[in-house]
C-alpha cells in the first residue's frame, strides 16, 4: 500500500460522485481533443492546399522590395536570366531543397472572341508544376478523400500553348477544355501583346473570390506574352520537410547575402493569408473552448474534493494525529484529484478515438464558408495537443483540490477528530 493506492481507493469511496466528476473531465477532454484534432486536420489540409494545391511551395524568393514595389516597377524587380541561373544553383545545393523553379505572374484580358474578362495568370514550368502538385496527389491517394480537380496535370511541356483556367473564369466565357481563347496583356515595356491559347483543363481555387480570375499557364507562354525572355519575378522552392521551412529560409538568406544578392524570402504561410486567418480564428476558438472546459474541470474537481474533504475530516484528524504533516494531507488530496483527472483524461482519450473513427466511418462532408465544393469532415489525433491537454488538466485538477486540501490540513487536529 502506498499513497497512490490510498488516493485511488479514496476515489472509490463515493463512486457515484467520482464517476460524475470523471465524466465531466472525460467529456471536456474529448471536446478539446476532438476540436484540436479537427483544427489539426484543417491546418494540415490548408497547408497542403497552399504549398501543393496553390503551387506556393515552401519558400518564395524574390528581389528585395518586390513584395512592396514590384507592381509599380516590374522591370526593376524582375530577376534576370543570370540571377535565375545562379541563385537556382546556390539554392539547389542547400539540404532539404528538392525543387527550385522560376515563376512569373501576369494579368491581362482573356477573350473567347465575343466576350472578354480579366485574368491573373501564374506562369510556371509544367514539369515543376507537376512536382509541386504531387503532394496533393499523394495525400489524395493516402486518405482516399476525393479526386484531383486542380487541372494542373493539363499543363503539358509538349503543348506550350495550353493553359488551365478556373471554372468560374471558363464559365464566364463559356470556355471548355479543348476550346480556344485569346490572351491580351502588356509587355514589360508597356506594349500590347496577344496570344492564342488552348484551354487544357479547369480547376477550382476553392475560394469564391478568386474562382473566376485565376489561371495557370506555362512559364514560357507568360514570358513570351510579357516579353521577358528568361526572366522571373520569383523562385518557388519546394522542400522535403515542411518543418524545415524556417531553418532553410534563414540558411538561404545568409547564403545569398554572402553571395551578394539582396533578396526577400517569404514562407508559404506568410503568403497564404487564408491559412493565417483561419489559423488565427481557430486558435481563438480553441482557446475559448479550452478555457470553458478548464473552468468546468476546476469547478467539478473543487466541488468533488470539497465534499470529500468534509466527509473525511475525522480521517484527516486521525492521519495528522498519527504523524502525517500538513503538506502530506495536501499531497494526499491533490494526488487524489490529479489521479481522478488523469483517469478522466484517459477515458476522454478513448472517447475521442471512438468518436474520431465514428466520424471517419460516417463519411461526413460539408461546404466551408467561402468555399465552392464540399470537403470531408476529418479529425486527426493531435498527440502533442492531447498530451498537453492531459498534463494541463491534471495540473489544474490538482490545483483545484489544493484549496480544500489546504483548508483541511490547517484545521486544528482536535476539531478534525471531533468532526461529526
Amino acid at each position, binding site marked *: *500500500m502506498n499513497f497512490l493506492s490510498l488516493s485511488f481507493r*479514496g476515489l472509490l469511496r463515493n463512486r457515484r460522485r467520482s464517476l460524475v466528476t470523471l465524466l465531466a473531465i472525460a467529456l471536456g477532454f474529448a471536446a478539446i481533443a476532438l476540436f484540436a484534432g479537427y483544427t489539426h486536420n484543417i491546418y494540415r489540409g490548408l497547408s497542403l492546399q497552399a504549398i501543393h494545391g496553390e503551387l506556393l511551395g515552401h519558400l518564395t524568393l524574390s528581389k528585395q522590395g518586390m513584395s512592396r514595389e514590384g507592381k509599380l516597377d516590374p522591370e526593376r524587380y524582375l530577376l534576370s536570366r543570370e540571377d535565375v541561373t545562379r541563385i537556382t544553383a546556390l539554392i539547389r545545393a542547400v539540404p532539404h531543397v528538392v525543387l527550385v523553379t522560376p515563376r512569373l505572374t501576369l494579368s491581362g484580358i482573356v477573350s473567347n472572341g465575343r466576350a472578354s474578362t480579366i485574368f491573373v495568370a501564374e506562369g510556371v514550368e509544367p514539369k515543376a508544376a507537376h512536382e509541386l502538385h504531387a503532394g496533393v496527389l499523394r495525400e489524395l491517394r493516402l486518405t482516399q478523400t476525393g479526386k484531383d480537380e486542380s487541372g494542373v496535370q493539363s499543363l503539358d511541356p509538349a503543348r506550350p500553348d495550353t493553359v488551365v483556367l478556373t471554372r468560374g473564369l471558363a464559365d464566364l466565357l463559356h470556355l471548355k477544355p479543348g476550346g480556344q481563347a485569346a490572351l491580351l496583356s502588356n509587355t514589360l515595356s508597356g506594349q500590347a501583346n496577344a496570344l492564342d491559347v488552348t484551354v487544357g483543363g479547369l480547376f477550382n481555387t476553392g475560394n469564391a473570390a478568386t474562382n473566376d480570375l485565376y489561371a495557370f499557364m506555362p512559364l514560357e507562354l507568360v514570358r513570351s506574352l510579357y516579353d521577358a525572355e528568361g526572366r522571373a519575378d520569383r523562385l518557388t522552392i519546394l522542400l522535403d520537410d515542411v518543418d524545415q521551412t524556417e531553418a532553410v529560409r534563414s540558411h538561404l538568406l545568409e547564403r545569398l547575402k554572402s553571395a551578394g544578392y539582396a533578396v526577400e524570402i517569404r514562407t508559404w504561410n506568410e503568403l497564404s493569408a487564408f491559412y493565417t486567418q483561419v489559423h488565427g480564428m481557430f486558435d481563438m476558438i480553441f482557446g475559448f473552448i479550452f478555457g470553458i472546459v478548464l473552468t468546468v474541470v476546476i469547478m467539478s474537481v473543487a466541488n468533488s474534493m470539497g465534499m470529500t474533504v468534509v466527509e473525511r475530516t475525522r480521517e484527516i484528524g486521525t492521519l495528522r494525529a498519527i*504523524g502525517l504533516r500538513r503538506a502530506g494531507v495536501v499531497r494526499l488530496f491533490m494526488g487524489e484529484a490529479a489521479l481522478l483527472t488523469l483517469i478522466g483524461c484517459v477515458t476522454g482519450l478513448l472517447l475521442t478515438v471512438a468518436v474520431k473513427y465514428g466520424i471517419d466511418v460516417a463519411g461526413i462532408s460539408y461546404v466551408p464558408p467561402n468555399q465552392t465544393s464540399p470537403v470531408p469532415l476529418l479529425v486527426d489525433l493531435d498527440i502533442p495537443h492531447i498530451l498537453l491537454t492531459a498534463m494541463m488538466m491534471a495540473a489544474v485538477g490538482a490545483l483545484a483540490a489544493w484549496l480544500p486540501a489546504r483548508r483541511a490540513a490547517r484545521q486544528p487536529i482536535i476539531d478534525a477528530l471531533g468532526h461529526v
Partner: protein
Amino acid sequence: MTPTAPPLLRLRDVHRRFHLGTTTVEALAGVTLDIHAGEFMAVWGPSGSGKSTLMNILGLLDAPSTGEVWFEGEGSRSLGDDALTDFRGRRIGFVFQSFNLVPVLSALENVMLPLQIGGEPDARERAGQALAEVGLERFVGSRPDQLSGGQRQRVAIARALGIRPRLVLADEPTANLDSENSRMVVDLMREMNRAHGVTFVFTTHDPRLLDHVDRKILLRDGRIEQDEVGS
C-alpha cells in the same frame, strides 16, 4: 509516587480555555502532573470534567493556553507544527473511541499506515507482528467493516503499538464496546504495557475498568481531584 527517573511527561499548571462566542470555558484549570515510563493509568471523571482535553494535551494534539508540557524533557512549545507531528508520529500511539480506522484499507494496511508515514522500510513486517500480538493475524486482509467492534479496537491498538511508541493514549477506548469486549481491550492494553513497557493512559466512564490500572486520576471541573496510585 517518588520516581527516580525523570518523568516521560511533565505538565505544569496547564490551563486550556475555549472561547465560545462571548463565553470562555476553562476545560483545564491548572493541571500539574508527571507521568512516568511504563505506567498504566486511567483518567476518569464525569462528562465535561476535561478528560479529552487533557488527553489532547498529553498527546501533543493541542497546546495549553498557559502552562508547560515536556515530553521526555523536550518542551512542546519549542517545536513547530512539522516537528511536533514527526515527534508524535515516532513516540505516541493513539487509540480512539470510534476506532478511526481508514475504511478503504485492510487491517494490515491500517497498521502499516503510521509506519509508512514515518518512512519505516519494514512497515509490512512490523504491522504483521503488531496484528499477531493483538491476536488478529487471521484478519490481516479484512477491512474494518468486516470486523467486529472489539476486533476494530484491537486493530487500532496494533496501529498504536506498531510504531513502538513511548506512550499510548486511549480516549474512551471501550465506550463503543460491550462489557466483554471492553474488558478484553483493557486486558490487551495491560498485556502490552507489561510486555513492552509502553506507557498507557486511557480515559473511561466505566468504574469497573479502574480495577485494572496502576494509577487513577480523577478529574473534575478541569482539576485533578484525586491521583491514586495502586489498584
